[in-house]
């Protein structure tokens, strides 16, 4: 089957690839482009481990086709830090120990980045509902919520 040629922007860089018509964006990122930060926890859009931002919208990349990325902008966890400087969310996740195994962390960071872009001053309840599409089995979410609260505080002051 012939591949579909796609031109897109990932973390600010122009990227071109060929993909199959039925190939999820997640597989393109992981298997064709080597961007393995997004994880496959379910493949059905239930766990959020594959979260990426597509044109300012939070999506599960397992539910988006690679071909749909044509002409659009994708943000992944690999693009969050700038040079040697971590994004405040990354820094606060480390400081609060908001990860144990860490498999859900890239998805949470992307979802939290999207949440804070839309709501820079979320309440605890807004954070909990804003991140309800991301599953974490290790932490009980307590330290994740605190890390996001702390990052929001830091980002407001910046």
């Amino acid at each position, binding site marked *: 089957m012939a591949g579909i040629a796609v031109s897109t922007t990932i973390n600010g860089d122009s990227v071109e690839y060929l993909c199959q018509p039925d190939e999820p964006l997640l597989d393109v990122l992981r298997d064709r482009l080597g961007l393995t930060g997004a994880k496959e926890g379910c493949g*059905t859009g*239930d*766990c959020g481990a594959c979260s990426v931002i597509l044109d300012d919208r939070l999506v599960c990349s397992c539910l988006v086709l690679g071909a749909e990325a044509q002409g659009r902008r994708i943000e992944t966890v*690999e693009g969050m830090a700038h040079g040697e400087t971590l994004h405040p969310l990354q820094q606060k996740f480390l400081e609060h*120990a908001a990860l144990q*195994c860490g*498999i859900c962390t890239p998805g949470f960071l992307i979802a939290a980045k999207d949440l804070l872009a839309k709501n820079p001053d979320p309440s605890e309840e807004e954070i909990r509902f804003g991140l309800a*599409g991301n599953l974490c089995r290790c932490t009980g979410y307590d330290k994740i919520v605190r890390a996001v609260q702390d990052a929001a505080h830091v980002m407001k002051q910046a």
Partner: protein
Amino acid sequence: MNFDPRYANRNFASVGTRPIRPDGIDKVTGRARYGADFNMAGQLVGRVLRSPHAHARIRSIDISKAEALPGVKAVVTAKDLPDLTNGDAAMYDILDNSMARAKALYDGHAVAAIAAIDARTARQALKLIEVDYEVLPHVTDVDEAMRHHAPLINDTVFTEGLEEKPVKPSNITKRSQFGHGDVHAGFAQADFIVERSFKTEQTHQGYIEPHACVANVNLDGTAELWVCTQGHFVYRQHCAQLLGLEASKLRVTSSEIGGGFGGKTHVWAEPVALALSRKAGRPVKLVMTRDEVFRASGPTSATSIDVRIGARKDGTITAAEATLRYSSGPYAGSWAEIGAMTAFACYRLDNVKTVGYEVLVNRPKTAAYRAPSAPMAAFAVESAVDELAKEIGIDPVDFRIRNAAQEGTRSSYGPVYGPIGIGPTLEAVKNHPHMKAPLKKNQGRGMACGFWFNFGGQTCVDLNIGMDGSVSLAVGTVDVGGSRASLSLVAAEELGIDYSQLKAIVADTSSLGYNDMTDGSRGTFSSSMATISAARNAIKILRDRAAQMWDIPVDDVVWEQGHAVAKGDNYGNLGKLSLRDIAAKSGTTGGPIAGHSELVADGAGVSFATHICDVEVDPETGATRVIRYTVVQDAGKAVHPTYVEGQYQGGAAQGIGWALNEEYIYGKDGRLQNAGFLDYRIPVCSDLPMIDTQILEIPNPNHPYGVRGVGETSIVPPLAAIANAVSNAAGVRMTHIPMSPPRILAAIEAERG
């Protein structure tokens, strides 16, 4: 110097602090490599064909069409995994579970597998495999499976542990019994007796990372396996035995692990991946789908438990008895036995008896799930304890304090306790502000206790000092939740250096001696013991090198706060030599400086916790929300308190999901109906409140720093704590877990009449 594991009270510089974990940066930048994040040149995609039947004889498998499909490089069935287990029944079960031989024993049981050039070809090829099944009667319920006329899952099983050897085969593989005293006499002394039957449904560990591996078998008989596992040395043993490889020629590297909770303690598809690679002559990557994880990895037991407890008017328990039936999937297990051991472990009892039955069912092979078997037993016992307190008219915390086990108590499963934390956790709960906070309408508060044994086991550590004085620590216990940070703290403490001077890694099976897997809450307990021992061995060498540099007897050199110091009246002008000073000269004083340790970490101190929970029950829908939760648990010594809190919170959250929502649902056809995160719903962020924690430190006398394992106990009390809270909120005693809205609503309506 012999290693002395006994507790020595000391002031800590590093232990007890909360630095950032050494693997943290990789995990927040997406660079950490998990099971599915590794690739090899020329690698194929492996996929597994699974039985749609709960119980079926496999008459034949025709793989010819699949083999003929272009792009298919290997197809394997049980014929490609000959029985090399030499009468080892447990290994045979693992072999049979990884690829069905005569019969498919559950919905999801592997029957064949394919390696192809890409996922699309592999999926196509799976459809071309023709399996001729003779469908057999099945049984998936633990109580049904014990009935006389139940379909037999394995007709060579005769119940072990009975006084007379049975003449007929049975689905009950084993009976076990624990206890002491005379329960009959004990119940005769009781003024109040509570007797109840309970059921708990099967749950899954729910790790977010599916099982994943890359297998590479070379033509010379050597092999490599990259895999997410809780125990790469154990995986090496299993795979080497099942594939007929020499263990030392199979190098297993543990990837970062995306959660395990017991579910990654033994092999599932890894032997199949190796068999595919061997047949294809190329590396094979095999990643389970979420559907496969639910259907074909190792969930916990479903249970059916009867409890009877009697007490005098003054609140003293006079007798306690339980019968526990645990499903183990289609293979023998010891899950009811563990449940029977833990059931009454929190209490000081003169008369106690527990009996466990291991029951075969047509469900996936049961695996460990965080303090395996204990939460279900605690649910039954702690529910009955609460009810008994209510009948006597005594506060449930006071009732438990009155009957709590103490140092010197003979436990219900046999051993006599050393210093333990059950009493202190109960006292802390009694005095906790949470217990005094007001409740609103439809809200109720519950509490419950939990016990877990903890485990030590075989452990090996290497500590290598570089010529620049930096220290690398190679451990063999897989880091499931921050243990590289805690072990670095321990090494820093012992050497007297800064945490930042160290880097800890998990070494592969060819680089370090054998280690048992990370289970039984042993990671930090056992590897810290070995790290302390290795550091002390390195210090011995450092002292020797300092003595050479100073040209004085080594006995006059002591190690203090990261420095060699000369002790004696004549050495006033020698000053101190830092670890860096000594390391810089190591090339001319005898070569590399390292400390090694190999030990069996005996003496894992038992662990106790008490939890408090507030719930709100909607009487119209039966929906229950946890609105406040507090965990109090003994850590012995919290090495990295933040990660200890994380273990407490995570276990509580898993327990909340189990208590209220999670369950395997089977249809009449014996097929799993909810094999996905949409229908098997684990708690999400908006389901939970903050989870408060209180760490108690009752030192473990068998560890130099007093450390106890902390990972598992936190999942033991929640089922009962929430059931007790629901009882207080809605006036109904829930006896079936999960307490899903329909079950609570039915109980409320039954209560109303």
